[in-house]
């Protein structure tokens, strides 16, 4: 380790003078720097330039860059290598630190998001404090975006390295903080992804709060009839899991609830759950109110008396429900819910429920519950893109144009038609059925989704199969652009469906028109393989509508500080190497909320997320980046203005040695710098982003060209 000295200020000033970059203002700023641990000797920085194969070397002149780096003040050593992140690459760093007595390292390579930890470790192994490392991103923010401008890219890389060196020269030793991790986790969303993740966490001995906004669990999968390619019934494989979730003592289930607020950080998230007013008490809740033997037992006596009729969303609106309802008989938990938006508070259900059970409370209010968890998993799922926006296919205009999810309900034995597939217009059995793939997917028009929704090909094949199972003499047509049967046993399934008689038409449907009398549909398309336009009359059209993140995804992800991509899917930490993690430590993703997935992939992703989320909990403590604000007490006037500015309530005024000064609660501070930038007395020092360090970076950029 480099010895700590206490004269940072003086030294940096000298250095600055050496490089003729001194302005009076800056000197003043320098003087504000507190006496802290830091490099005392003249900084000796090593610069390591990575080719990243041709990722960087393809658009930046490495030789020229290295030659330039040698001329930057304080640079004592330079090197370049094909992959600096590899073992030999890292060895170059550790060796140079020892041999060249470096005081800091700069690696010019990819984004710190990817390899900052790698190079910190290398720096540490070389004998320096790991925070003496600075990354210069010349890949994502340079090589990749300036691919066709080698000269410009090289110039920009020079700037980036010079700036990084300026900072590295002023970096100090820091010690990461460790904090204990709460031995509990939260899973948001109780579809198949959330259920699987919760079950895994619970099985690993972790107390898990499972939050579901719908009245019951099971999510989209519980709406499906059979599943491809095995054709096992969705309910049959899902129900046991639902029951397991309901009875697992490590799982605390909150249905009809949502996350209201999140505070804290990995290891210590304080989450407020909003239990929406449900109007119906569980047996436990009834008992808590002193109604012994009361509470909802799911008998359904209330249902027939309720006068309000609404569409059942679970049945895609194809079946009615009352204002007091369960979605279907197999719900978990078996507990009625009152839809207070439509309830007229007539009280008939209260009477029907009776004085023993007393399960109904028409005056129920939302309740707020606070829990503490160490990690959290988002599994918020998907919904269908509103395909009526693609007006050419006439969904919601022509009765016999339905979506794949409506088809699932219509073909499902427990669905609104008891599994008899009928045309919505007249209840007749359709004989000619057309399936439209890529309905709204792979669409760059702005109305629709640019991505592939990934499971529609396969479920449409399955739909076609189900028609042949149930409707003798039927003929199905699948309009496709490409059949993406990429999963295990999927291509074999495709073979089987074609063998069963489905006609595959390679053409995206141009438009659909309805015969106003028969309500039959004319499908206009180009059979691109035959090179002939077609007008195909069918009885029913099923749109394999694109999927999009579920409605509440955006609100929820913001609470947890998770980013999303342009199309709204939640952003993983790394698309290949960390698909379940996010850039917020301690928050993970499971299932479709991260991007479209079929059931096998969803379950795999959920198990991955559960495993990742259990690691910090099992470790028991996590290291936090020591990027806290610290108070330079001699300078602090105790004005307290920063206390109110801090968005994380991390600051407070305390009395010390007879003076009022500010104190930072490090565990709460996120290092955002709001206070540091504001403090009129310059009394707040931001670790690793200190004013002199930032000013040096700006100077290096602005005055750099003069060197």
């Amino acid at each position: 380790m480099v010895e700590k000295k206490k004269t940072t200020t003086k030294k940096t000033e000298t250095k600055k003078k050496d490089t003729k970059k001194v302005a009076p203002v800056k000197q003043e700023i320098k003087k504000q720097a507190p006496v802290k641990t830091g490099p005392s000797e003249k900084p000796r920085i090593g610069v390591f330039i990575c080719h990243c194969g041709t990722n960087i070397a393809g658009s930046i002149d490495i030789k020229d860059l290295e030659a330039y780096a040698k001329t930057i003040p304080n640079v004592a050593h330079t090197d370049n290598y094909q992959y600096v992140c590899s073992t030999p690459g890292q060895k170059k760093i550790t060796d140079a630190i020892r041999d060249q007595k470096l005081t800091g390292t700069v690696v010019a390579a990819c984004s710190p998001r990817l390899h900052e930890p790698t190079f910190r470790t290398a720096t540490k192994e070389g004998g320096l404090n790991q925070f003496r490392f600075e990354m210069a991103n010349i890949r994502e923010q340079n090589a990749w975006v300036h691919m066709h401008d080698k000269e410009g890219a090289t110039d920009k890389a020079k700037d980036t390295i010079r700036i990084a060196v300026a900072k590295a020269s002023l970096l100090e030793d820091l010690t990461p903080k460790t904090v204990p991790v709460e031995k509990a986790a939260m899973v948001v969303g109780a579809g198949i992804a959330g259920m699987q993740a919760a079950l895994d966490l619970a099985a690993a001995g972790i107390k898990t709060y499972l939050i579901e906004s719908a009245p019951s669990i099971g999510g989209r999968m519980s709406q499906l009839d059979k599943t491809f390619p095995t054709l096992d019934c969705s309910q049959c494989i899902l129900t046991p899991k639902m029951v397991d979730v309901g009875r697992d003592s490590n799982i605390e289930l909150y249905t009809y609830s949502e996350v209201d607020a999140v505070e804290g950080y990995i290891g210590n998230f304080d989450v407020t759950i909003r239990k929406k007013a449900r109007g119906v008490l569980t047996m436990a809740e009834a008992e808590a109110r002193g109604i012994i033997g009361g509470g909802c037992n799911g008998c359904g006596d209330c249902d027939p008396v309720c006068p309000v009729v609404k569409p059942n969303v679970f049945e895609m609106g194809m079946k009615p429900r009352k204002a007091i309802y369960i979605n279907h008989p197999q719900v978990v938990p078996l507990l009625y819910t009152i839809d207070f938006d439509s309830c007229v508070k007539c009280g008939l259900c209260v009477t029907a429920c009776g004085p023993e059970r007393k399960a109904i409370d028409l005056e129920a209010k939302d309740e707020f519950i606070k829990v503490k968890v160490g990690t959290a998993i988002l599994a918020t799922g998907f919904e269908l893109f509103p395909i009526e926006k693609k007006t050419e296919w006439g969904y919601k205009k022509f009765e016999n144009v339905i979506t794949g999810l409506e088809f699932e309900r219509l073909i499902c034995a427990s669905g609104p038609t008891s599994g008899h597939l009928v045309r919505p217009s007249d209840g007749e059995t359709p004989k000619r059925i057309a399936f439209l793939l890529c309905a709204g997917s792979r669409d760059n028009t702005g109305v629709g989704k640019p991505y592939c929704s990934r499971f529609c090909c396969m479920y449409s094949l399955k739909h076609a199969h189900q028609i042949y199972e149930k409707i003798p003499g039927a003929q199905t047509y699948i309009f496709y652009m490409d059949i993406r049967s990429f999963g295990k046993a999927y291509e074999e399934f495709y073979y089987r469906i074609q063998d069963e008689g489905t006609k595959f038409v390679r053409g995206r449907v141009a438009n659909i028109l309805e015969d106003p009398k028969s309500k039959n549909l004319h499908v206009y398309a180009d059979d691109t393989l035959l090179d002939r336009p077609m007008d195909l009359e069918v009885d029913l059209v099923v749109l394999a509508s694109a999927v999009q993140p579920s409605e509440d995804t955006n609100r929820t992800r913001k609470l947890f500080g998770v980013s999303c991509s342009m199309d709204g899917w939640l952003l993983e930490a790394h698309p290949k190497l960390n698909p379940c993690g996010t850039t917020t430590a301690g928050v993970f993703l499971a299932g479709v909320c991260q991007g479209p997935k079929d059931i096998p992939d969803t379950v795999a992703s959920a198990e991955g997320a559960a495993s990742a989320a259990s690691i910090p909990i099992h470790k028991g403590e996590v290291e936090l980046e020591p990027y806290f604000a610290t108070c330079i007490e001699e300078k602090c006037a105790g004005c307290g203005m920063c206390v109110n500015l801090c968005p994380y309530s991390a600051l407070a005024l305390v009395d010390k040695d007879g003076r009022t000064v500010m104190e930072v609660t490090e565990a709460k501070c996120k290092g955002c710098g709001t206070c540091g930038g504001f403090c009129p007395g310059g009394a707040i020092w931001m670790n690793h982003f200190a004013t002199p360090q930032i000013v040096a970076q700006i100077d290096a950029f602005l005055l750099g060209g003069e060197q």
Partner: protein
Amino acid sequence: MSESKFKFAFYLGCIAPNRYPGVESASIKAMKKLGVELVPLKGASCCPAPGAFGSIDLNVFYAMAARNLVLAEQMKMDIALVCNGCYKSIWEVNHKLKHNKDLRDNVNEVLKEVDMEYKGTINVYHTAELLYNDKFIGVDKVRDSVTNPLTGARIAVHYGCHLTKPHKDREFEKEVMLNTEHPVWMEELVAALGATPVEYRNKMQCCGAGGGVRGYDIVHALDIANEKLINITEQKVDALTDICPFCQLQFDRGQIEIQEKFGVSYNLPVLHYAELLGLAQGMSPQDLGLDLHGISCESFLQKVL
């Protein structure tokens, strides 16, 4: 009406003034009653025909359309026009030139030779849009202006293509006008005259005349129109209305050609919406020059007069 609330430079195009002059006179009179004055755009030329000129050389197309735009710019007036084809040339070139400096510079280089400069200071509207948009007139005012309601007349609507397509490049304040699959705004305008708008199969299909096809391969063009005529006459309508004199020519004169070439006849009266509006406001068939139509409007007139 004494004072007109709005004034537009009236861009006539070719077919309206030179084949269906009733469209011109009805537009001027009817719009005047609705508070919109149409002022002659002196020296205007062909828009130029988007099919022909667009196919030959888009640069000429831009320059020629820009010349017409500059005439209106010099009058400091927005343009109103009565033809979808003209809309494609005049509106679209205006839009393109406003948004693309490279095109604007090219065009101005040519216009310099005739001492003109395109500045991009005006907007272009179709009269159908002025009638539909209550910022200018609106369906209610149209309804109020009717003195001779066309009660009992079953009228099919032909929207044509170039007013609203491609919708991704169009900008209408009334968003329903951007619906190019199942629009009903023209039907609303027809209903405002007291007539019954009638839906028919494949309403949005093209008339077949555009893109130079009518000149290049007349039977091909007529076959497209004929498909529409079959679909329309299936519904037992009294007339077809349009907002494009070129479509009107294709359906009106086209019926005679269809009779000649394919041996089928429909005798379906075809009227521009301006002509319908004129009738509903009390103009006589003679005022509208309806006798110039290829297909006699008599059967229809008997129903509504």
